């Protein structure tokens, strides 16, 4: 019993207070609903409003995409059913959407490249997988060579050369994004470090590059890479027509990445640099072992946003005549033999789902990584 009443001037605890469970109705599902959905009149109104909105949109979407959809058949079946998506059309065009005009008898090469790439990426991203350093070595050194030989061809080992103008569809989209992602992060880190450098020339060069690239639209960068580069560079040095927009994409995202990384570097307390320097650790090991692991962890959301932006920006390469996935959807949609009122919505729904699955996957993976890294590492 407490003796801390008014008037008493001394107090001495005789027994400890035991730890008790929380009172009912502050935990459990019912309490959660009350606290989060119906805590006030305004909150209750909003809850019902959003419920109504969901009830209005979701059933009709499910209706269109699944319940009333045409799963098999031909153009005539689809024209007869105006209430549902025409998945038969996607099924018919599926190979074209995946490979573009890549010769049919050589498409196994794309499959092999994609499967190997997927396995390596999974190995690399799966935390706790054995020997991830081997995966990194394979993915960053061996795989690019393998992919180049397989996709482009090497007559020496009996693989005919497939001109890049025939590549298309998902192949192009994945290729552009993977290359953009793999190059833009290290490049962005270097640019960010350069921008914070004490050396005036390095700093000026990085600032100029970053501000110039961020100051022009992506389409301009693509046009410049595609049409202006060949004007200045001799013919034999001009990169392939597919490589040019790839370089453009990587450089463009690198500039944005640099600013994201710089934000992380600025959030680092000065003491971390001093702690490392006082131990005699040089600039590069300090950056690699102490500063960047922490700085990059803090800006994972920004990095992944940039990746997602890059992934979706690859659709713009269609402007310089490259048949990326969205471009092939567009072409397929306009095929007169499939013409019908449900074809375009189906094509776009399919394209949207494709982009959404990849972007959402990236976003989820980054959330998991953030949670994992924040465990036990609070300041």
């Amino acid at each position: 019993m407490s003796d801390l009443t008014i008037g008493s001037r001394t107090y001495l605890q005789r027994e400890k207070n035991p730890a008790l469970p929380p009172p009912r109705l502050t935990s459990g599902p019912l309490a959660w609903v009350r606290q989060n959905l119906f805590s006030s009149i305004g909150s209750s109104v909003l809850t019902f409003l959003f419920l109504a909105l969901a009830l209005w949109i979701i059933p009709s979407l499910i209706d269109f995409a699944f319940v009333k959809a045409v799963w098999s058949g031909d153009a005539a079946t689809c024209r007869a059913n105006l209430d549902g998506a025409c998945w038969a059309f996607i099924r018919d065009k599926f190979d074209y959407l995946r490979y573009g005009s890549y010769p049919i008898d050589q498409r196994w090469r794309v499959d092999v490249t994609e499967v190997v790439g997927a396995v390596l990426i999974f190995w690399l991203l799966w935390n706790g997988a054995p020997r991830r350093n081997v995966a990194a070595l394979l993915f960053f050194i061996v795989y690019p060579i393998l992919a180049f030989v397989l996709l482009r061809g090497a007559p020496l080992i009996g693989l005919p050369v497939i001109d890049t103008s025939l590549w298309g569809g998902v192949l192009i989209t994945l290729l552009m994004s993977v290359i953009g992602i793999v190059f833009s992060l290290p490049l962005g880190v270097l640019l960010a470090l350069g921008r914070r450098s004490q050396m005036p020339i390095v700093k000026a060069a990085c600032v100029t590059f970053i501000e110039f690239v961020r100051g022009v639209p992506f389409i301009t960068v693509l046009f410049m890479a595609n049409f202006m580069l060949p004007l200045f560079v001799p013919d034999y040095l001009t990169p392939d027509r597919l490589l040019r927009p790839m370089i453009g994409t990587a450089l463009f995202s690198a500039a944005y990445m640099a600013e994201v990384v710089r934000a992380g570097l600025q959030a680092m307390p000065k003491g971390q640099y001093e702690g490392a320097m006082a131990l005699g650790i040089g600039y590069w090991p300090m950056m690699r072992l102490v500063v960047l692991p922490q700085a990059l962890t803090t800006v994972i959301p920004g990095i992944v946003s940039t990746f997602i932006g890059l992934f979706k920006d690859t659709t713009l390469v269609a402007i310089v005549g490259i048949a990326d996935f969205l471009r092939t959807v567009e072409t397929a949609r306009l095929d007169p033999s499939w013409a019908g009122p449900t074809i375009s919505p189906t094509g776009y729904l399919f394209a949207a789902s494709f982009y959404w699955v990849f972007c959402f996957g990236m976003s989820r993976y980054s959330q998991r990584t953030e949670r994992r890294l924040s465990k036990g590492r609070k300041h």
Partner: protein
Amino acid sequence: MSVAPSPRTLGQPAIQLDGVHKWYGEFHVLKNLSLTVAQGERIVICGPSGSGKSTMIRCINRLEEHQKGKIIVNGTELTTDLKRIEEVRREVGMVFQHFNLFPHLTILENCTLAPIWVRKMAKKDAEDLAMKYLKRVRIPEQANKYPGQLSGGQQQRVAIARSLCMNPKVMLFDEPTSALDPEMVKEVLDTMVSLANEGMTMMCVTHEMGFARQVADRVIFMDAGEIVEMNAPAEFFANPQHERTKLFLGQILH
């Protein structure tokens, strides 16, 4: 507790400051500092905040740059030459007010980082070394935790162990107990005392006057960027000469 340090034979100069000046922009922070610290000597530096104590010891491992005068550490003069700066830093350990442990690395990894990357030690050897020093600061059982899971006093002891892993010839302490809860000050001071008893050359910015009395060979009082008074601790506390020193001691010793 208050046994005066026995007179010891001191070695060669470990740190020499000769007419050192430093400015922050127009502001003259260090004014004509000259001081020689012998090997094995323990110096305690005190003074009001903004008097340049921290700046002075941060100049000794070049976390701050001096603009005039000479600083020679273990026979190497500090210049703009990065090689020399890193050479000095390898031999000079530093313990900070806010520990500056690396929060993304475990305690063990904090301790092995520099031995592996600077001394090029094998990982196994570095870990053995780290465990040896973690035992010395009495927290070997924390080796696999992260700094954020430790108390302030434990973190500071890790920071001391981390410095010791580089086997430094000199240790600098920049207010090592100022950021600690009162209950944890003693464990860190005890570690520092045992280090002093083993003959480590130490320069210590601190307001722990008990520590100064117990281990210091000399106490230095700084004010406004200058060394105002320097004396053996017994004499310094019993008989301060300068008005400024008297005023300062009057404020902190009640």
